[in-house]
């Protein structure tokens, strides 16, 4: 599923000359709170190559979410440049930004952010609704995406009829359904027990194995160790950027492996 999209993305990434899919240069973000200024990000340089699985760690308030929101084109930056897929996003505004969020980015949030009144399948369909995909194709694609996260039979359930882990899997299906260039996850396991967290990591790893680019924020070193690279923030700066020699594989979840295939 992600393979051919990735090949395309790699080609485009070369436009910038770096081949990176995420390229942040001297990225700063300053919040104004009353007369105070909060420097959430201070001249961050970060480059993520296609197919990388990056974990972002750091103390609370160190700027991890701020970075994710900017990478995800949800928030604007104060200074610096951010290239997504070779395109300078800092200069883009309005509806084009919405289109980028829609096609290139899949977001997974700590609090799931599903619409409570819609069924799981309808939630998964939403990005396709905004992409203008016709209803019948949407339903089929939503079924496929739910199948990928092992929830084929839960499509008609409302979010409040699902467990936390299931909710997060619906959110992942939703994030994947438009075949985005990158998957961004801000503490995806933060609200889950460790077993459900392992399941989510299992899904992420299988996506990564297929070539997906993933950036994930986490507080837990165990979770971070599933990634191939760990970037650590402190006070809005990157203080370490290390490769994980041997990422840990997600423990077996008791479900048949082909459920993720």
């Amino acid at each position, binding site marked *: 599923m992600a393979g051919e999209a990735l090949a395309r993305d790699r080609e485009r990434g070369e436009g910038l000359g770096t081949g990176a899919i995420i390229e942040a240069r001297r990225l700063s973000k300053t919040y104004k709170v009353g007369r105070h200024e909060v420097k959430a990000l201070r001249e961050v340089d970060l480059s993520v190559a296609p197919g990388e699985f990056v974990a972002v760690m750091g103390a609370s308030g160190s700027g991890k979410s701020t970075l994710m929101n900017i990478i995800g084109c949800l928030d604007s930056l104060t200074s610096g440049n951010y290239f997504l897929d070779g395109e300078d996003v800092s200069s883009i505004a309005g509806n084009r930004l919405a289109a980028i969020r829609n096609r290139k980015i899949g977001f997974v949030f700590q609090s799931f952010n599903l619409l409570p009144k819609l069924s799981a399948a309808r939630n998964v369909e939403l990005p396709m*609704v905004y992409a203008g995909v016709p209803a019948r194709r949407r339903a089929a694609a939503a079924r496929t995406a739910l199948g990928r996260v092992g929830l084929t039979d839960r499509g008609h359930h409302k979010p409040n009829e699902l467990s936390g882990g299931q909710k997060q899997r619906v959110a992942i299906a939703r994030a994947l359904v438009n075949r985005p260039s990158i998957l961004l996850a801000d503490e995806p396991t933060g609200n889950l027990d460790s077993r459900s967290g392992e399941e989510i990591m299992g899904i992420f790893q299988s996506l990564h194995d297929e070539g997906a680019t993933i950036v994930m924020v986490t507080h837990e070193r165990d979770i971070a160790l599933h990634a191939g690279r760990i970037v650590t923030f402190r006070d809005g700066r990157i203080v370490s950027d290390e490769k994980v020699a041997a990422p840990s594989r997600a423990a077996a979840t008791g479900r048949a492996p082909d459920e993720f295939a």
Partner: protein
Amino acid sequence: MNLLESFISAATSLSGNKMRSVLTMLGIIIGISAVIMITSIGQGLQAAVNGQFSKMGAAGLEVSVKLGEHVTSKDLLTVADAALLETHPNAESVSPMLAMTGRARLQNPSETDSLYYVGCNGSFKDVYGLDMLEGRFLARQDLENNASVIVIDSNLAKRMFGQADPIGLTLHASFSFGNMDFTVVGTYKPTDLGSLFQMPTFAYIPVTTLQKAYGRSYLDSIYVNVKDRSAIERTAVELSKLLSMRHNNDGKYNVANMLKGMDSVNTVLGGVTTFVSLVAAISLFVGGIGVMNIMLVTVTERTHEIGIRKSLGATDGNIRFQFLVEAVILAAMGGLIGIVAGYCGGMALGGAINVQPSVSVTTVAFTVFISSMVGIVFGVYPASKAAKLDPIEALRHE
């Protein structure tokens, strides 16, 4: 995001808050139903009045001797005068008229009904716009032979003869000057207006027969239908001159334009409609503010949802459209419910005062259009507010 999608999503969110939706619509429902109720009655009344008048040929003039003038017997109108007026080039049909109240015996011989016996000729059917149901109207020979024939309305025929075919049966009439028997030759359809304005029941007999029985040679009036409506005022003057010449007098005749009556009814009804529309406009405005208020509340409540939708790629336009559709559905539903409620109210009121209420397709279309417009006008601001929300701040909102 297409229209259907927005429609479904709006309907889902509105039905999730039924009580609130209905209360919000109430202002619009009341406004629209008031208008529909009053205008349906007004239009029904107008249709009845106009139908009646329009049946009276192209236009009608009523010629009579002026009251209060010093009138001598030589000034009075006669059947010969009617024949004279018929020679006027703009006269379509002319009927002499002499009327008199009397009674008629009903099926139960001890009961009688008050009748207004109208002596006239065959043209009166067109002059007065009567719809024949059975048999025929008066004919030329009836007048020539002073025949004792009568045309009555079908309601009277039922009271008089029950279910029997009234044609050829005998009507026993009594006048101040004595009793007479008439043979029924036709029945006509009673008019809506007759029952509405509590008019007496009319029965038509040859004017010559009534004149002979009553021993009078004159008429009450002469009805003239004109061919060219635009020349009606001039024709009125000319008819009056023709009569003055024949009777060798001056200005003793009154020629009344019956269409003026229709105009004044229409003017009154028009005034009522305008007033009701004004009241409706005010209540629609208040209803619109209600819609705006609730939409603002909705936008605040659903800020988080808006953030989620934006994070998934919804444009400002998508969000604006979604909330606008919701406001329009709210208002248009109010309008539709108002139409139904107003029509039911109109039926109830119409039943009480004996008018068939009428709601035209134009009225319904216009009402739906207006209430949708209310939705748009008062929905734009909340929808734009929703659209302009910053995605990340909206997402943080719980």
